[in-house]
C-alpha cells in the first residue's frame, strides 16, 4: 500500500461517495442558487433573469426582510449569552464532586436532544392564555398572565425560554472542557489563597476558552439557522408561522416562507446567499477575535 496510485484509487473509492455528495448536495446547489438569486422564479415558469432586483427589493422595499433580521438579532443577543451562561454555570456545578453526577447531567442534557416539534407543542400548551400551566400558576399568585403566545410582545421571549430548555448541549461540551482542567492547578491556587472567583477567572476560564469560544460561535450560527422552533411555534397554534405581527419571523423561517409558501424562489435564493455571506463573515471574524483571547494551551 505504499503505492501512491493504489492509494489514490482507494481514496477515491472510499471518499468518493462523500465527495460526490458534497458536490451534489452542497456545492452545486450553492452555485445554482447564486444564479437563481438574480432571477425571478416561481417554480411554474422557468427562471427569468432580472439582475439585482431581488437584492434591491430585499434591502429597500421588502417589509419582512428587516423585521426578520431584527428578530434574529434580538434572539441571538439574548438567547446565546443566556444559554452559554446557564450551560457554563451548570457545568461548573456538575464539575464539583457531587453525588450521582451522571444522573444530573442526564436530566439537564436530555431536553436538548428531544424533537423540537414535540417540545414546542408542549410549551405552547404550557404558555396558552386560558388554562395554560403558567397562567394557572400565576393565577395562584393573583396575577393575570397575558396571552403569551399570541402577544407580539411576549411571543419572542417565550421562544427564547423554549430554546433555553435545550442548553444541555453546550453544557456537556463545557463539562468535557472542564474535565481537562488539571485539578492540581486548582489545589495549588487554593493553597496560595486564591478565592473561588479568582481561581475561575485565572485558571478555569483561560483553559476552557476554546470550548467557550466554540459554544459562542455555534450559538450564533444556531440562532441564524433557527427554523424548527419558530415554525412549530406557529403551526402548533394553527397559525401561519412567523406571527403574531412578525414577532417570531426568524430569518430562516422568512426564507422558507418566501420560497415554499409564496414561491419567490429567486428572492429566497438571494436571502440564502446573504445568509451564507453573513455566516462566512461571522466565522471569520470570530476566529480573528479568538486569537486575542482564546488560549489554546499549546
Amino acid at each position, binding site marked *: 500500500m505504499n503505492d501512491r496510485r493504489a492509494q489514490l484509487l482507494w481514496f477515491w473509492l472510499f471518499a468518493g461517495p462523500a465527495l460526490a455528495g458534497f458536490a451534489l448536495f452542497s456545492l452545486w446547489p450553492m452555485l445554482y442558487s447564486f444564479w437563481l438569486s438574480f432571477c425571478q422564479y416561481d417554480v411554474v415558469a422557468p427562471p427569468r433573469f432580472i439582475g439585482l432586483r431581488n437584492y434591491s427589493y430585499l434591502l429597500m422595499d421588502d417589509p419582512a426582510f428587516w423585521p426578520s433580521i431584527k428578530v434574529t438579532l434580538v434572539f441571538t443577543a439574548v438567547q446565546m449569552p443566556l444559554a452559554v451562561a446557564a450551560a457554563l454555570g451548570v457545568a461548573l456545578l456538575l464539575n464539583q*464532586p457531587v453525588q450521582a453526577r451522571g444522573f444530573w447531567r442526564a436530566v439537564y442534557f436530555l431536553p436538548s436532544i428531544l424533537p423540537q416539534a414535540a417540545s414546542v407543542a408542549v410549551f405552547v400548551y404550557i404558555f396558552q392564555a386560558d388554562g395554560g400551566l403558567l397562567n394557572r400558576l400565576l393565577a395562584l399568585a393573583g396575577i393575570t398572565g397575558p396571552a403569551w403566545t399570541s402577544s407580539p410582545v411576549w411571543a419572542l421571549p417565550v421562544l427564547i425560554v423554549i430554546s433555553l430548555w435545550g442548553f444541555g448541549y453546550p453544557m456537556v461540551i463545557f463539562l468535557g472542557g472542564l474535565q481537562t482542567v488539571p485539578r492540581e492547578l486548582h*489545589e495549588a491556587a487554593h493553597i496560595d489563597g486564591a478565592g473561588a472567583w479568582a481561581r475561575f477567572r485565572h485558571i478555569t476560564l483561560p483553559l476552557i476558552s476554546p470550548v467557550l469560544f466554540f459554544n459562542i460561535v455555534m450559538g450564533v450560527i444556531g440562532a441564524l439557522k433557527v427554523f424548527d422552533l419558530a415554525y412549530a411555534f406557529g403551526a402548533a397554534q394553527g397559525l401561519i408561522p412567523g406571527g403574531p405581527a412578525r414577532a417570531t419571523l426568524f430569518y430562516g423561517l422568512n426564507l422558507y416562507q418566501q420560497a415554499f409558501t409564496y414561491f419567490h424562489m429567486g428572492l429566497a435564493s438571494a436571502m440564502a446567499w446573504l445568509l451564507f455571506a453573513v455566516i462566512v463573515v461571522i466565522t471569520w471574524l470570530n476566529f480573528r477575535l479568538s486569537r486575542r483571547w482564546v488560549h489554546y494551551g499549546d
Partner: protein
Amino acid sequence: MEHHRPRHLTAVLLAVLALGACLMVLPLVWMLLTSLKTFPEILRNPPAWLPAVPRWENYRTVWEGFAYYRFFLNSVFVAVMVIAGTVLTCCPAAYAFAYYEVKHKELLFAALLSTLMLPAQVTVIPLFKAYAAMGWVNTYLPLVVPAWLGGNVFGIFLLRQFFRTIPKSFIEAARLDGASEWTILWRLIVPMSLPAVMTVVLFTFLWSWNDLFNPLVYLHNEATYTLPVGLLYFIARAEQLTGGSAGLVPWHLVMALATVMVLPVIILFVAAQRRFVEGVTASGVKG
C-alpha cells in the same frame, strides 16, 4: 479538595441542582400528565392538575384511531435507511481521510467540514427544483439519498478522529497478511471503533427522527408524513377531530402523540447516555 468543603455548601449545591432539574423535567411531566387526561378535564377552565383516572386509552386513540402508527413507521423507515447509508458511506470516507496520503486531502476535508456551517435553507431551493424535476417530491428519496452519499459530515469527522487513535501498525500488519483495504476497514477498523460508530448511529438517528425541515419541504401526502410533521398536522386537524368545537385543540391527544415521539429518544438516551455525551463532547473538541 472534597474534604475542605463545608457540609452546608454541598447541601446548597444539591438543592440548586435539584431545583434546576425540576424545571427541566416539569414540561415533560406536564406532557405525560396531560396525555392521561380526558377531554373534559382539559376543557375545564382552569384544567385539572391531575387526571382523575389515568386514561391510557388516549394512546390507543392516537395510535389506532388516527392511524398514527403510520407516521411512526414512516419515521422508523426513514431513520433506518438514513442510518444504513450513513454507516456504509461515512466509515470508508473517514478511513480514507484518516489513513491515505493524497494531495489536497486536507483541503477536501476542510471543504467537507465547512458544510457543517451551511444551513439547510441555503441549498434547499435548487435541490427542490432538481427533485421536482426527477419526480422525487412526495417520496422519501430526498431524505434518504443524501445519507447514502456521506451526507453526515459530522459522522465522518467523528469517525476520522477515532480511527486516528488506532496505531497504523495494525493496518500495516493486516496489509502484510494480504487483507484488502475493504476487509481491513470492515473487519478490523470498524469493530475496533464500535463506540464511535455507535455514537454516529445514535446522532444520525436523532437528526433523522427530529428533522422537521426536510419532510416539510418534500412530503405532501398524509400517508408519507413522519412524526414531527404528523404532530403539527394533527394539531391542524384537531378541530374536526373533536367534532368542531371552535379551535379547541385536544391537547390530551397532542400530548400523547408528543410522548410517543419523545419516548424512543429517551429510551435510547437512557440506554446509551455515554455515547451521546461522548459525541457532543467530541463536537466541541477541536480536530
